[in-house]
């Protein structure tokens, strides 16, 4: 597990998800677990933590479906910012 995945899992479990929804792993489908208001909070947290601006088109089920997909998308953004 990458450190970004660990950070995401910690933040999501502690701040955004009701514990009665069950344990969340990197490959857990986040549909039905993270609601629309929590997604917007997550976007703000990602911008603040990783230092890039999130585009509207990127707030999608493809990128936000699981922690693994979030991790891959965040790493792509960090690479393009660094390039």
């Amino acid at each position, binding site marked *: 597990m990458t450190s970004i995945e660990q950070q995401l899992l910690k933040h999501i479990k*502690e701040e*955004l998800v009701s*514990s009665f929804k069950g344990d969340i792993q990197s490959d857990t489908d986040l549909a039905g677990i993270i*609601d629309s208001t929590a997604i917007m909070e997550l976007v703000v947290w990602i911008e603040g933590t990783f230092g890039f601006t999130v585009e*509207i088109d990127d707030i999608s089920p493809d990128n936000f479906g699981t922690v693994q997909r979030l991790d891959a998308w965040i790493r792509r953004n960090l690479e393009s910012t660094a390039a």
Partner: protein
Amino acid sequence: MMFLADLLVNAARRWPDKLAAVFPHERVTYAELEQHSRSVAAELNRLGIGPGKRVAILHDNTLAALIYYWGILRSGAVTVDIPTSAGHATIVAALDEAQPSALAIQPAYLKQLAVELAGTCQRAVLSTANAAEFAGPLLARGQSFHALEAMLERKQALPEARAGADPSTVAMTIYTSGTTGRAKGVMLSHANLLFNASTFNSQVGLTNQDSLLLVAPLYYIHGRIQLLTYTMLGGTIFFSAGFRFPQAVLQELVRYAPTTFSGVPYHYSMLLTHSKLRSTQLPSLRKMMITGGALSPARLRELQEAVPHVALHINYGMTESSPRLTHLGPSDEVFARPTSCGRALPGVTLEILGEAGEPLPGGAIGEVVAGGPGIMTGYVSGDEHASGRIDARGRLRTGDLGYLDADGHLFLIGRSSEMIKSAGERLFPGEIEDVLQRHPGVGESAVFGVPDPALGERVVACVVPAPGHDLTPEDLKTHCLTALSYVRVPKEVHIVAELPKTPSGKIKRNALRARFASPDSGRAHEAREVHA
């Protein structure tokens, strides 16, 4: 005599091959839906479940949920909608109260809830085959498990007419947030809902050529009345994957090209601020319905500028009135009185009452009270009169404050109840305070809503620590997440020395609301506003 299930039977007879419902990965015609619902109804009847019995539905918007809904109605039983967005304690309490004979449940919820549900009263659990592995705790208590797939294989006939059936009997029960912190089961009759669907449509003028992108959950009246209206018309409903991704909802509007859309203010705010609505062409879209609260005049104008060819329609109502009471539209009517929610629908009476229950003249502000054929038959708990919700004359006390102008246009100016409307959900302080009070460090707590540009209102809590306890807002938010869904978790928690109270000891929520309504750094939603 007409019953809700007749809407589907008629649609299947007249438009058998027309698509009734389109989901992201599935679709069904009216003929198929009619046949599937008959199979479910036959299975329920075989289990001894029919008229006079309740069958609960705990489902997000799925094809299985749609089939079960119509199947339950066709069996003669009453549907009981339980919001999946409620916390587990609320769900279990609602099932305990409703005592359903069977429960139609989505596999994911059976997985989460099997142990708690084993203590409730169901004889039979209805799900899909992939849920069988989660049913162990229920089977151990003698309840039976039935998979939809097996039911649909057994195509069975169903008696067409039900001798002695009465359209004024209860067809559906919908659980909605209640003032006490417990959800209230609102019982609506066939006649209530058929009146509402046909009367509202007489004002809005939808036809068989219309279609809808549905974003509301079917377990709320907003979703159910859309389903009934479009089934009555033989129109197609496109089921959105949900409002978690506003830009994805906009892409659904492009891909499905529905002629109508219905949303609450939160949905429109999100489309305007978190999608590229303004720069996207939606040539098929003809009408947008705004319900469940008011968009500000500025937001209404923004919306109309974003979709200049679309007619806007506003309505006001509540679950207890099946739901719609008023209508305002199309756009020229809306912009003539942008702060009104319209005039009473034909057959609906609106009155404004003073504090002593006396009728007030035009222009005077008081409680909005409604009458007409859509008013609920009662609550499952039986306290619709004792709670003051239904008065001695059978009128519905809405708990909303407003006035009527000389033309009968209703203007709402606030609520006499403590309801908080946040992100399209209706919440009451009691359910959140109950959870806060379970924290050992909490002495007293008060929960209220303050205006929020994106959420409508956001939930704020003020907490007085118990003697000898140190509390942090973070601790309390984490604690709330153990029992509440995220939308109900206070977005701000203030630790205070005392709560303002009236001489009789009642918490002055208005004083707290005024104190904490000022702009604040915690408004992540506002900070994210983007004009695309």
